[in-house]
């Protein structure tokens, strides 16, 4: 049969047409995972019984596959009467899963800020909230920008998992073409190349950001 280059090129527009869905899933999941991960880390830092529970949850998430989490949410929620679209379940699943990883990133970021910063702010009479917003957060963001960017690339690369839940993102679009024509090789290869290009572009962006921040840190 051989690899049909013309057919591969013909399938590009349909697959590229689903890039919007891929980016929508990736961007919302990044925000979801960052917000949830920050909350998890704050709760974990406060300690106590709840903190211990969150600590275990983070460990548990990180010791289990993302695919299984997606299946869990997708098949278990309707059983309890919660009916959500596959897209919502997918975004929720990726957000929840990667929040476990981002919590660790926030932990490292907060740990790296010298305690003296907080004490100095207090000595100057800056309020607690202002200390977090204007002293701690900017320094933390600079510390964590690079690892956070790497996890955002991971989230992008995890979006094709949602094809398993029939979300029409790029891999889903490639499979649609494949099952219509019984030719799998070409559309899947095209999807692979587009994903690779996207991931490389974003990780180059992260590297550039990392360099910029390293320059601005030099005193």
């Amino acid at each position: 049969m051989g690899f049909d280059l013309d057919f591969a090129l013909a399938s590009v527009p349909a697959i590229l047409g689903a890039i919007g869905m891929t980016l929508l899933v990736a961007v919302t999941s990044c925000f979801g995972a960052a917000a949830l991960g920050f909350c998890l880390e704050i709760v974990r830092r406060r300690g106590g019984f709840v903190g211990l529970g969150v600590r275990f949850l983070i460990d548990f998430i990180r010791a289990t596959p993302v695919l299984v989490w997606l299946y869990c949410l997708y098949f278990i929620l309707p059983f309890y009467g919660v009916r959500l679209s596959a897209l919502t379940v997918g975004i929720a699943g990726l957000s929840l899963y990667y929040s476990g990883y981002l919590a660790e990133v926030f932990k490292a970021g907060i740990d790296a800020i010298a305690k003296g910063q907080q004490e100095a702010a207090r000595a100057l009479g800056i309020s607690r909230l202002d200390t977090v917003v204007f002293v701690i957060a900017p320094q933390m963001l600079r510390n964590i920008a690079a690892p956070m960017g790497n996890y955002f690339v991971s989230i992008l690369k995890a979006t094709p998992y949602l094809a398993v839940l029939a979300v029409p993102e790029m891999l889903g679009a490639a499979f649609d073409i494949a099952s219509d024509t019984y030719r799998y090789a070409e559309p899947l290869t095209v999807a692979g190349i587009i994903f690779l290009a996207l991931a490389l572009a974003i990780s180059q962006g992260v590297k550039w950001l990392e360099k910029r921040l390293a320059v601005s840190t030099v005193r």
Partner: protein
Amino acid sequence: MSMFDIWSGILGGFRITASVTLYGLIFAVPFALVFGVAQYLTTGFARFLVTSVIEFWRSSAVVILLFVFYYALPVVGVTLSAMTVGAMVLGLNTAGYASQAVRAGLQALDRGQKEAGQALGLSRAAILLLIELPQALRAMSPTFINLVIQLVKATSLVSLITLTDMTFRAKEIAQVEYDPVPVYLALLLSYFMVCYPIALFGRWVERSVNPVREASRGI
């Protein structure tokens, strides 16, 4: 269906999960060592070629790579078993990350190590094998253990290319019994019971390699 039946059903897939992991490591370890060292030693165009191969395996979405190799290789006349494709793709994807750890570990060594070797009249190969690699690999061992966990978790993907691993078995049971809740929770727990001990071992290694810094608690 009793809890016992569910557990023994999922356990029936453990052999495949373990095999894909072990075969994956057979691909991953040599690739990571050779390409990590090559990226460290080469310059110019040779380094560009080495980096390209690493980036292909590291930056591609692993789900898509799995499908592409499973469906596209037969078209160009290469027919591999699902087990081989799974082990190769997951192994080399992990190896892409591991090669970066090898390179970073080598680069982080004090230059004096290499210079002392040269002053003693050792050949470049001897310096690499006897002085640089042992120290770099030791320093990076927690990272390698984390990558093994990533590999175990990634094996859940082979259920999508017809291998009957733990995830495949659980899906099968859930469909037959129409009772997804205990099945998928048991599946999550199964992965946790495999990965968490490895994670604890990794933290212990991290503490012994790096006694001053607090363990980064990575999975």
